[in-house]
């Protein structure tokens, strides 16, 4: 199959850096200095789309590229450049030498990028923003309690267009609408001048995207004329006609519709480098086109599958150039492009259809990391479809599709203030965050918060043990707290201060973006930016929230449980002894008990979240309840009063790998976690904490106050491949999902235990104490097996055999 060929050829290509966009964009920005930012960026966007090179890969059915070559990442020097200069010098690595996320580039590319950097240095969004934040916030950022690099060094992302409406009118419809509003503006009234700038920018950018497609039409026509294979010649002619029509006009076929979606998606990712631009409910908005084509006999299911698979390949041709520091937080060229299937209709009926199945087939056949396929489950999701989705989890082996609790998310959205008419149509954006297609500004935006780092300060009278810096004076330390309630209160006080600093940083960030980074194209795809004449960050959308990913609730909860257990309940050690053990990372062998003994005690005997044990779970519940309710009820974002609804700060527990990166800066914790070790991921238990199996873990997770998890909560669960290979096994996995979701939780994704996991478990048995393998009708813990037996099991798993 051609799509397999396109896929395989793509994976052979080493990612690289492309300087084209940076060069054209920078030249355009040089020419427009002094003009309003929204128009400057619109014109620069137009220049890029006019000037960048195009490619058409052998045999592909969908065209449109983000950079000059597949897997090449464009550069966006207007956001941040300091790291590019450093990494060009090999500090800490040359980009082709990194342990992961390598990029190649040639000397010419480097020189071109350095020329653009010469212009941007000192005036990037990041530098301007850093120079304007209050000292206290900068200190908190630098010591790693909060971290806004992911937002401040890049454009805003997490946008979800309403493809249903956009396909109905085409981009020409958008232009007409913007023109009408422009014509109606009463320029004698205050505030209208800015609106006119925005609306003009909408017209420029939408036209630029239409013209970009026409460039492809010309190229395809040229290729078609030279093509000798009759079948391909006819394909190229069809594709040329398509690109002359969409995305300007409404598509008339499924193929045209997918092509239109791709052009729009691609251009959003050329406009800025903000990640997590998502597709939304793919099987819903494309369904009418598919159905019409099938009914008319112009399309077969196989052709539709090929088109979807080709789109999946195109998504993986895209890339982002991240700093090495950034790649630690989002490894694997991660762009968090989400695509949703399943769920319900406006009337509460099952929404799944043949396209749902086609997306699952494409996920299975392509086995690619992007897009992130998300399956919306609700009580009327057909059992057959759920079974098929779980089967794909096993064959994909990369956690896809992930499962989302449709009614649970709707309940949360109701609590947040989303209207009933919109709730059923939600879709996840980026990693996990629920958004309403075409109505939300940024599904996730804001500095990260490291809850475990904040706990360290709370346990040390407000002082960060690593740097000696105090942001907010504390209420004592481990040697002075008299009971666990005092510890929790001290922690809440610290958390509150760091949340305030998060919000402060984001407010500065927003104002800097308003001055330097207004983007008309993406804004025009979200209601009601055109109607209000405002970009997203100015308050153009129907709904708005802020909230950066937070890390470490479970690790912090385990730490509190450890203090309660060892110091206040069992009274094994005093708070002072614990304080010393933490300061010395459990390495002082001269104390009684020794540091190592305290470590073992806390690690093995103190209760941990994830075992259905209230002695531990209640602390994680208390932390998530405090953080979630505080964000939602106490803080507003910068769009408050500007038009959008909600406008609160909100709680996100999507860490990707930030739990590892942020864990490096956190010292030893009273859970027995040593300094520098990873923190827990999302709302999953800390590594090695689970002892009682999946149902106990889900019972723990089910206690969490999910009503506050408005920006989502990632839950990773591990399953053996055998569990998902049989229908019986999949019904067990389905039982886990259903029970978790009956308890109103947000999400679950299954990582199928593969060779990599087993190898890691061999090397780090203490982190995999609950890892069970199943051989010949007999389950055993993997870690205690001897090397020979472990090897045997790994060999079986590597060949994907049924054990036995």
């Amino acid at each position: 199959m051609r799509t397999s060929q396109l896929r395989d050829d793509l994976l052979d290509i080493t990612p690289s850096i492309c300087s084209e966009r940076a060069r054209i964009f920078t030249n355009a920005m040089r020419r427009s200095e002094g003009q309003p930012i929204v128009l400057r960026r619109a014109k620069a966007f137009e220049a890029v789309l006019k000037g960048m090179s195009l490619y058409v890969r052998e045999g592909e059915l969908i065209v449109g590229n983000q950079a000059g070559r597949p897997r090449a990442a464009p550069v966006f020097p207007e956001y941040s450049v300091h790291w590019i200069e450093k990494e060009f010098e090999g500090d800490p690595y040359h980009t082709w030498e990194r342990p992961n996320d390598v990029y190649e580039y040639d000397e010419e590319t480097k020189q071109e990028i350095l020329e653009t950097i010469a212009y941007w240095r000192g005036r990037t969004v990041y530098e301007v923003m850093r120079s304007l934040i209050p000292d206290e916030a900068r200190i908190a950022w630098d010591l790693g309690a909060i971290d806004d690099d992911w937002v401040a060094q890049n454009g805003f992302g997490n946008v979800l267009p309403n493809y249903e409406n956009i396909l109905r009118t085409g981009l020409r419809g958008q232009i007409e609408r913007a023109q009408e509003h422009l014509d109606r503006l009463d320029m004698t009234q205050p505030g209208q001048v800015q609106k006119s700038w925005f609306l003009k920018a909408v017209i420029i950018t939408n036209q630029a995207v239409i013209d970009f497609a026409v460039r492809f039409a010309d190229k395809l026509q040229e290729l078609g004329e030279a093509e000798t294979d009759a079948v391909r010649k006819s394909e190229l002619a069809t594709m040329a006609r398509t690109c002359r029509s969409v995305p300007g006009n409404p598509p008339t076929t499924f193929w045209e519709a997918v092509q239109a979606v791709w052009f729009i998606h691609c251009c959003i990712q050329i406009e800025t480098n903000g990640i997590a631009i998502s597709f939304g409910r793919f099987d819903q908005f494309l369904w009418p086109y598919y159905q019409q084509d099938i009914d008319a006999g112009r399309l077969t299911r196989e052709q539709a599958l090929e088109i979807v698979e080709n789109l999946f390949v195109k998504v993986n041709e895209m890339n982002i150039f991240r700093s090495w520091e950034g790649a630690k937080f989002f490894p694997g060229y991660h762009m968090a492009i989400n695509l949703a299937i399943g769920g319900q209709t406006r009337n509460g009926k099952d929404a799944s259809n043949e396209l749902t199945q086609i997306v699952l087939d494409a996920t299975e056949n392509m086995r690619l990391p992007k897009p992130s396929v998300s399956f919306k489950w609700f009580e009327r999701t057909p059992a057959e479809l759920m079974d098929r989705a779980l089967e794909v989890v096993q064959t994909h082996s990369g956690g896809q599709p992930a499962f989302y609790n449709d009614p649970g998310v709707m309940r949360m959205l109701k609590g947040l203030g989303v209207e009933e008419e919109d709730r059923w149509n939600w879709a996840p954006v980026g990693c996990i965050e629920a958004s309403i297609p075409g109505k939300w500004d940024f599904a996730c935006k804001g500095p990260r918060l490291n809850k475990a780092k904040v706990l360290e300060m709370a346990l040390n009278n407000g002082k960060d043990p690593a740097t000696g810096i105090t942001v907010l004076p504390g209420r004592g330390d481990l040697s002075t707290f008299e009971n666990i309630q005092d510890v929790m209160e001290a922690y809440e006080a610290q958390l509150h201060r760091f949340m305030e600093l998060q919000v402060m940083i984001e407010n500065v960030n927003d104002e800097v973006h308003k001055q330097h980074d207004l983007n008309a194209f993406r804004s025009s795809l979200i209601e009601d930016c055109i109607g209000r004449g405002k970009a997203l960050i100015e308050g153009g959308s129907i709904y708005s929230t802020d909230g950066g990913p937070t890390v470490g609730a479970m690790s912090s909860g385990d730490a509190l449980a450890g203090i309660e257990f060892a110091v206040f309940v069992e009274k094994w050690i005093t708070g002072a002894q614990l304080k010393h053990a933490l300061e010395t990372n459990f390495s002082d062998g001269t104390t009684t008990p020794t540091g190592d003994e305290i470590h073992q005690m806390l690690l093995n005997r103190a209760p941990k979240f994830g075992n259905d044990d209230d002695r531990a779970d209640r602390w994680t519940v208390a932390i998530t309840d405090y953080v979630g309710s505080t964000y939602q009820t106490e803080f507003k974002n910068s769009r408050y009063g500007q038009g959008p609804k909600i406008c609160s700060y909100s709680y996100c527990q999507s860490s990707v790998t930030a739990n590892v990166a942020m864990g490096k800066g956190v010292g030893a914790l009273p859970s027995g976690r040593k300094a520098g070790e990873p923190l827990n991921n999302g709302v999953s238990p800390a590594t090695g904490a689970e002892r009682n199996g999946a149902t106990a873990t889900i019972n723990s997770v089910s206690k969490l106050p999910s009503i506050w998890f408005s920006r989502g909560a990632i839950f990773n669960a591990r399953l053996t491949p055998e569990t998902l290979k049989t229908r019986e096994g999949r019904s067990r996995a389905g039982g886990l999902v259903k029970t978790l979701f009956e308890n109103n939780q947000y999400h679950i994704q299954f990582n199928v235990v593969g060779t990599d996991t087993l190898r890691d478990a061999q090397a780090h048995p203490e982190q995999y104490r609950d890892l069970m393998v199943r051989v010949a009708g007999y389950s055993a813990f993997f870690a205690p097996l001897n090397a020979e037996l472990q090897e045997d099991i790994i060999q079986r798993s590597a060949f994907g055999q049924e054990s036995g």
Partner: protein
Amino acid sequence: MDSPRTIESGDRAIDGAVFDLKRFATGDGPGIRTLVFLKGCPMRCVWCANPESHSRNPEIMYHKNRCTGCGRCMAACPAGAIRFDETYGLVTDSELCMRCGRCADVCLAEAREVIGRNMTVKQVLRILRRDRRYFDNSGGGVTLTGGEPLAQCSFARELLKSCKEVSIHTAIETCGFVGWECMESILPYVDLLFYDIKHPDSDIHRKFTGQSNERILENLLRASHAFDGKEIIVRIPIIPGHNDDESTISKIFEFVGRLPNIIRIELLPYHRLGTVKYAGLGRSYKLRDLEPLQRHDLECLKALGEAFPVEVRIDST
């Protein structure tokens, strides 16, 4: 007829020797299950993978991979039963050991574990019911295994009965070496019976398991007739050189094939995952060098089943 019972019924205070409760078990019966492992077994099969289940009394299991070698256990042992062995680490002499559990108490690394504790029916139920919704959402339930669960007949019966009172699906895994009165008394509370058959020849059976097989075969015969409307799965552990020849297996198939209510036969291939447990208990494992069968050989044995009116599967999946 029993009169209606209250939750505080006296029988639920019955103690049982339990050595493990495994939640989210996926191999012994339909759906998501909790396995209750009862301690003590009347047989001593040479291939047994659960040596900690043999004795009804508590035992000390040593996990060498967790041991930090601190020696606190040696210092704490009042009987001086723990010594250092180059290969096996800090092993316990089971002759000297008094099963007081002090070594496990002082072991912070959890390298020593007391296997087996007395639990009341109520205590077990409390844990089972925490997973009730998973049972319901996956068609699962509870499976009693061991050891030989029927060796603690009244405890097993009360536990099964209590599960049925709240409509939890029940299964039991038995070797069949029990009195018929016991088996008969628990059958009303069992939805699915896993029944092990090891060998059709009584002398060979005695040689490998320590017990003759007449009672086992007779109990299966009677249970299958007494058990209308429920399900029996016969399990045969396939042990190379012990019972893996075609004539032995055919004889079992023939016997089982004549019985009613048997939904299938499962062939459970021999494996060596229990080796580490023998070491942990300070015992030697006679079959440690025995190579497991190849998939192909199992397929051949499975194919023998085609001559009989019963489905044969390899493994439980």
